[in-house]
């Protein structure tokens, strides 16, 4: 039973989402403000955070940033349609996915399950070697540990799943639509900014410069994992 932390300022919406998600079989804890949400992170130990971007006091983006500073728990942002800039900033801050208000509990549930699947995406796959080395990058598929130049890299769930998907077939070009379906389990027509923002975050964490070595852009087609 996944544990979901909801940060939502409107009482009705908070209670309704709580009700809807409980009905879908989640264990839900709902708070009103970002400060409360950060406080509950330790004691409640959620599997996923559903975070409204429009919050009084500390903004949703700040909350997102603070959570990412200490935790790689999956974050799903709830945005209002029309807050395009917020979506991009939120994704670059480290959110794994987003939904647009109003959202049906069924849809939110599907996103939560998808983002949780991401975490155990490549669990034991006996035929593969335990760890694969690409230059200075070591990807341990079984342990879900990534090290770069000997240092462990902490990746958010979407970043990890993206890296695992790309590196599973080095050299193969993935279109953004393919990645949306494979990593986020969105439809073919989902928001490609999810992919671009996640690639950006992943490259930052792998210390890639202007000519990326691992996650390479194939202009007009998508991305591929560099074999060199």
């Amino acid at each position: 039973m996944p544990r979901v932390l909801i940060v939502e300022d409107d009482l009705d919406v908070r209670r309704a989402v709580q009700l809807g998600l409980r009905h879908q079989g989640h264990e839900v804890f709902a708070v009103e403000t970002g400060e409360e949400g950060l406080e509950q992170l330790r004691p409640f130990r959620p599997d996923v955070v559903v975070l409204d971007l429009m919050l009084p006091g500390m903004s949703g983006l700040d909350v997102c940033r603070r959570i990412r500073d200490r935790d790689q728990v999956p974050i799903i942002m709830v945005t209002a349609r029309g807050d395009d800039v917020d979506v991009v900033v939120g994704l670059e801050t480290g959110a794994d996915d987003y939904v647009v208000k109003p959202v049906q509990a069924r849809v939110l549930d599907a996103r939560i399950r998808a983002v949780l699947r991401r975490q155990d995406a490549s669990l034991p796959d006996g035929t593969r070697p335990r760890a694969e080395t690409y230059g200075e990058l070591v990807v341990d598929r079984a342990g879900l540990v990534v090290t770069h130049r000997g240092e462990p890299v902490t990746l958010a769930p979407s970043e990890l799943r993206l890296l695992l998907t790309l590196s599973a077939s080095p050299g193969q070009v993935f279109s953004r639509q393919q990645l949306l379906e494979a990593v986020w389990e969105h439809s073919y027509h989902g928001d490609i900014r999810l992919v671009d923002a996640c690639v950006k975050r992943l490259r930052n964490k792998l210390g890639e410069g202007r000519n990326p070595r691992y996650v390479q852009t194939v202009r007009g087609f998508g991305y591929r994992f560099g074999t060199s």
Partner: protein
Amino acid sequence: MSDRTSAAVPGAGPRRFLRAALARIPLPLRGLRPRLLTSFVLVAMASSLGTGALAFREARTGVLQQSQDSVINRFRASVDAVAPAIPLAPDQSDLQFAVDQVRYANRSSDWRIMAAYGGHRAYAPNPGFVELSPEMLRSVRDRRVAVFQRMNVDGRPRLVVGMPVTYTSDEGLETMLSGLVMYLEVPQTTEEGYVEAMVRGIERATLVALCLAVVLALLAASGVLRPVRALRRATRRMAAGHLDVRLDVSGSDELADLSQSFNETAAELERTVRELRRLEAQGRRFVADVSHELRTPLAAMSAVTDVLDLEGEGETGEALRLISEGTNRLSGLVNDLMEISRFDAGAAELNRDEIDLAESVRRTVASRWRQEQVETRLPGPGELRARVDPRRLDVVTANLIGNALRHGEPPVRLTMGVRVDGAGTTWAVIEVTDNGPGIAEEDMPHIFERFYKASTSRARSESSGLGLAITAENVRLHGGRIRAANLPSGGAVFTVELPLHRDDTDTAADTGAGGGSTR
């Protein structure tokens, strides 16, 4: 009545012809400047030439009169001086003496003198004299007064004077003609010189007046033209949408008045437009605000519709199903309103990605309808790639097919192809046709308007009424075109054309490198 009509027609003909002829003259020639210039020059020429001509006539007459009077007086004095010494019936030597005396008395002048008495002739300084006119001969024979005549000899003007010599009779009562006549011939070159100098002077004065007239005309023209030009510039700027344009008003003439009126008109126009824009923005903001406010309660409702027991029996179950359905439709409407608001605010973003258009359409259809509901005729995989916003293309395709399924009859058919227009731009063309009654003629111009629902289909419409408006906005955002028409065989056809952006060098290079050319 008929007379007047018939009279008016021939009158209008030439005037129209004149206007047409004037219109054919290029603007620089029929503009204000040349017209003012021409008028000034004409006035200056007329006045200086007129004044000159009058002055010339008077002066010339005066000069000639005075010179001939003085010549005649001198001649008379000389003749009077010599006359007493001449006998009543002089012979040749007497005549010679007389002419020599007169000549000697006026030796400084270029005189030629002749004396005639009967058949005798005497000349000084040498023989030879102009031929005398019969009128002069007759006058000196019959009358006792001196006569003169201006003549041209070999192109040189001469004054010829004939002076009959008289004597006083013994009774001392009357003068009698003696029969002796003295003639004088004087060249008039000096006088002619005066006249020529006068003509030259008048010419020079006319020239100066002309130059002055041109300068004045140009000054006047620029004085008039500057405000006219400023007005023309301002009008053009205003036509281009710059309503804040104003003119500098200087002076207090009609042009200043006109500039003032222009400024007032512009200010009023600007105020009205600002007010209209404010109202429109207010209206749009209101829609955006309302949608925003609706969203919060709707978010609560949407989150719990799944909790409702939609399978329930009886009235409660029916009510719950209605609530659930209404909530979903309301969500769709609010989302559409928010989308429209974003287009209105210019906040709609285009997130382009290069994709296979046929694949996109195939996915759109597959995710919403059964295969047999929509016939598709699409290019093969990789044949038609373009940089579009995949999410917006999905909206466009889904709305058109949804619209065709709602308002038309099956089969609903979607075809996709490529068209190159006259300008060399390549377009991806998507056509959605249905087999229904088509679009009524009166609905056609409004089909892409918001909340416009063709009256015939109102009853069965489940859409928000914004679908086609959003579709059109999405197409426009891509720089594309959309139109609706009726097929000759019945049924409606919606055509969307999206530019393929082949001018984008990056994209072209990528397409080439990937081998996924659209050709």
